[in-house]
C-alpha cells in the first residue's frame, strides 16, 4: 500500500517535470523563431512563458488594430506568417497587429471568425482565405462596416476587398515548377500532380501553369491524372495519397506538388523506399523540405517567405488606413524583398518574391 503511494507520488512528480520541461523549454531553446513578441488579445494558442515584448501601444493616440486571419492554426507555414505580422507590429508604433486563425482549414470557421472581428470593431482585417468565393458576403459586410480588408492569395476577392496581395504571378510560378520538373525528368516519363483542393484558386493556377508548361515543352512526358489529387493541405491525407500514387503507378517518374504537405510526404516516401526514379518539384518551406532538398529527394523546391508575405499584407492594410493612395497601374512598396516594387492592377497588388530553394541556400531561411 505504502509502496503504491510512493510510486503514485513519484509518477506525479515525473509528469509535472515533463510538462515543466516542455513548457519552459519552448522559447529559450533552439527555436528562437517561435517566440511571438506581440500582444495577442484573442489568441487561442498557448501563452508563452517568456514575457512578451510590450508592444508600443500605450503612448500612441492613433492606434490601428489589424488582425490577420490565416487559413488555420498550427501549421508551420502560418506560424511563420504570424512572425511576419509580429515583426510588423514591432516596426510600427501606431499599430497593434496580430494573427489569429481557425483551428482547421475551414472556410465556414474563417467566415465566422471574420464576423467576430467585425463585431469587435478592428480597423483592418487581413485574410488568407481557404475558399475565396465563400468569403464574399462576409468581406462585403466588413467593408460596409468601414473596415479595411486586405486579402492574401485570393484573387476572386479582388475588387470586393480593398486589395488582394499576391507575392508573385501564380500562373508563372506554376510554369517554373513545371519547367523544373520537366528538366529533372529528362524530358520523358510519367508524372502525377496534386493540389490542396480544387477550390483553392492559387493552387489551381500553379497546377495549370505547371501542366501547361510541360504539355508545351516536353511532349514525351505524360500526366497520369487528368484531375489533380486533393490533400486539403493536410499532411496525413497527403501522405496517404502519395503512398497510393506510388503503389498504383510503380513506373512514375515525376511529381508536381502544389502543397508543401504533398511534396514533403512524397520525399519522405521516396526516402523510405529508397526510390530514386521519381523527381519531385513542389511548393516548399525549408522546415519541411530542407532536409530532402539537401539530400536530393526533392529536385526542386520553390516558394516564397510566409514571413514576408504576412508583413507585406499587413503593410498594405496599414497604408490604406494611413490614407496613402495606391493607384491602379502604378507600383507600390510593401517593404520586403520582392515586394518593394509591386504592380497594381485590377485590385491586385502583385510582387515578384519567388524563392528557389537549393541545397546551398536552404539553410538560411528560418521558416
Amino acid at each position, binding site marked *: 500500500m505504502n509502496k503504491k503511494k510512493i510510486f503514485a507520488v513519484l509518477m506525479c512528480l515525473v509528469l509535472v517535470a515533463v510538462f515543466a520541461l516542455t513548457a519552459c523549454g519552448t522559447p529559450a531553446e533552439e*527555436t528562437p523563431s517561435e517566440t511571438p513578441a506581440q500582444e495577442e488579445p484573442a489568441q487561442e*494558442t498557448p501563452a508563452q512563458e517568456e514575457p512578451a515584448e510590450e508592444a508600443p501601444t500605450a503612448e500612441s493616440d492613433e492606434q490601428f488594430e489589424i488582425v490577420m486571419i490565416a487559413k488555420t492554426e*498550427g501549421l508551420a507555414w502560418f506560424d511563420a506568417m504570424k512572425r511576419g505580422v509580429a515583426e510588423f507590429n514591432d516596426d510600427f508604433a501606431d499599430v497593434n497587429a496580430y494573427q489569429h486563425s481557425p483551428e482547421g482549414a475551414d472556410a465556414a470557421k474563417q467566415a465566422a471568425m471574420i464576423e467576430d472581428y467585425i463585431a469587435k470593431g478592428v480597423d483592418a482585417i487581413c485574410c488568407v482565405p481557404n475558399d475565396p468565393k465563400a468569403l464574399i458576403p462576409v468581406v462585403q459586410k466588413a467593408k460596409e462596416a468601414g473596415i479595411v480588408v486586405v486579402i492574401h492569395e485570393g484573387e476572386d476577392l479582388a475588387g470586393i476587398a480593398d486589395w488582394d496581395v499576391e507575392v508573385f504571378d501564380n500562373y508563372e510560378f506554376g510554369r517554373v515548377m513545371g519547367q523544373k520538373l520537366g528538366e529533372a525528368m529528362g524530358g520523358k516519363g510519367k508524372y502525377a500532380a496534386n493540389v490542396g483542393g480544387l477550390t483553392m484558386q492559387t493552387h489551381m493556377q500553379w497546377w495549370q501553369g505547371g501542366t501547361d508548361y510541360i504539355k508545351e515543352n516536353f511532349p514525351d512526358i505524360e500526366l497520369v491524372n487528368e484531375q489533380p489529387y486533393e490533400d486539403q493541405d493536410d499532411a496525413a491525407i497527403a501522405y496517404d495519397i502519395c503512398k497510393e500514387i506510388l503503389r498504383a503507378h510503380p513506373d512514375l517518374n515525376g511529381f508536381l506538388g502544389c502543397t508543401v504537405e504533398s511534396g514533403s510526404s512524397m520525399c519522405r516516401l521516396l526516402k523510405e523506399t529508397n526510390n530514386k526514379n521519381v523527381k519531385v518539384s513542389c511548393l516548399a518551406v525549408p522546415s519541411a523540405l530542407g532536409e530532402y532538398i539537401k539530400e536530393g529527394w526533392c529536385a526542386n523546391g520553390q516558394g516564397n517567405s510566409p514571413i514576408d508575405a504576412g508583413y507585406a499584407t499587413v503593410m498594405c492594410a496599414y497604408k490604406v488606413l494611413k490614407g496613402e493612395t495606391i493607384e491602379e497601374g502604378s507600383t507600390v512598396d510593401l517593404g520586403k524583398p520582392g515586394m518593394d516594387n509591386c504592380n497594381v492592377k485590377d485590385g491586385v497588388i502583385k510582387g515578384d518574391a519567388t524563392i528557389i530553394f537549393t541545397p546551398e541556400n536552404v539553410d538560411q531561411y528560418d521558416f
Partner: protein
Amino acid sequence: MKSNAIKKFFSKTEGYILLIVIVYCIIVAAVNPNFMTPGNFLDLIRSSSWYWILGFGVLLVLLSGGIDVSYTAIAICSGYVSACVIQRTGIENLAFAFFIAILIGLWFGAINGFLIHYFRLPTLIATLGTKTIFIGIMAALVGVEAINTDHLPAVFKDFGLAKLFTVPTETGAEYGLSVFFIPLVILGILTWFILYRTQIGRSVVALGNSEVSAERAGYNLFKTRMFIYMYVGALAAVAGVIAISDVAWIAPLSSTMIRGTELTIIAALIIGGVKLTGGEGTVFASIIGLLLVRLFETTLIFLGLTSSWQNFFTGLVFVASLSVTSLQRARKRRRMLLFEE
C-alpha cells in the same frame, strides 16, 4: 471434424469478413494488377500498424461494455509531448520517447477510468469531455505548433525508416517490413494474453457481460476500470509515437492524422464482430475488421475512385454487417418466440 471447424469459423462474423477481405482483394487485383505485390502488403502493415494498436485498446473498452472516444486525443497528446520533450532536451533515445509518451498515456487513461468509476459517468459522455480536456492540457502546457520534418527529432525519423528486411522492386525502389511490426505483434499477443490468460482480463469481459454479476462475483471493478483505461492510454501513446514516426511530421491541431479516426476504428471493430454492447469480441476480430476498413481506405487510387467512395464502402459494410447479424439474431429469437431483450 476439420471441415466442421472451418464451417463454424465462417459462420462467425470474423469468418465472413475475412471472406469479404479476400474477395475485395481479388477485385482490386483484377482492376489493377499492381495491387498484388509484396511491397503493397508490407506497406499496408506499416501504415495500418498504429490503427491496429489503437484497435487493441478499443477492443478492451468495447469488451467492457464502454465506448471510448478520447483515445485518439491521448495518442496525439502523448506523441506530440514526447516529440517536444526530446526536441527540447536533446535526449535522442527511442526508449525515452516511448517512456514519456506512455507515461502521459497512462495518466490520461487514469483520468478516464477514475471519472467513469467514481462519477458513474456513461463512458461515451465522459470520454467526449476528456477528449477536449486532454487537447486543452496539451495546448496550454506544451503548445500546438506543428513540428515539421526538419525539426522533428532524428530518433522519430530513424524509427520510421527502420526496416526488418527489404524487398527490391524492378523499378529500384525498396519496400520492406517496417519495425512497427515488432510493437504491433508484441501488443497483439499481450492483449490476447491479458484477455484470455489473466484474471484482470477476464474481469473486463465479465464487466461487459453483466456489471451486477461481476460485482457479485467479487471483482474489484475500480481496478478493472482503471486497468482498461490506462491500458488504452498506454496503447494510444505507443500508436501516437509510431504514427509520428511514420509521417515524420506532426501538427497536433490542424492535421487529421489519428484525429477523427476514433469512430472509424470503433466501427471497424464492430464490423469485425466485436459487440458494441460488450462482452463479446476477439483480438482476431479487431485485426480483421480494421484490415477491411484499411483496405477500403488505401485502395481507392488502384480502383481509380475518389475518396467519397471510401466512406460509401465503409458505411455500406458497416450497415450490412450489423444488419445481417442483427437480423439473424432477431429471426432466431422470433423463431423461439422471444420478444424481450
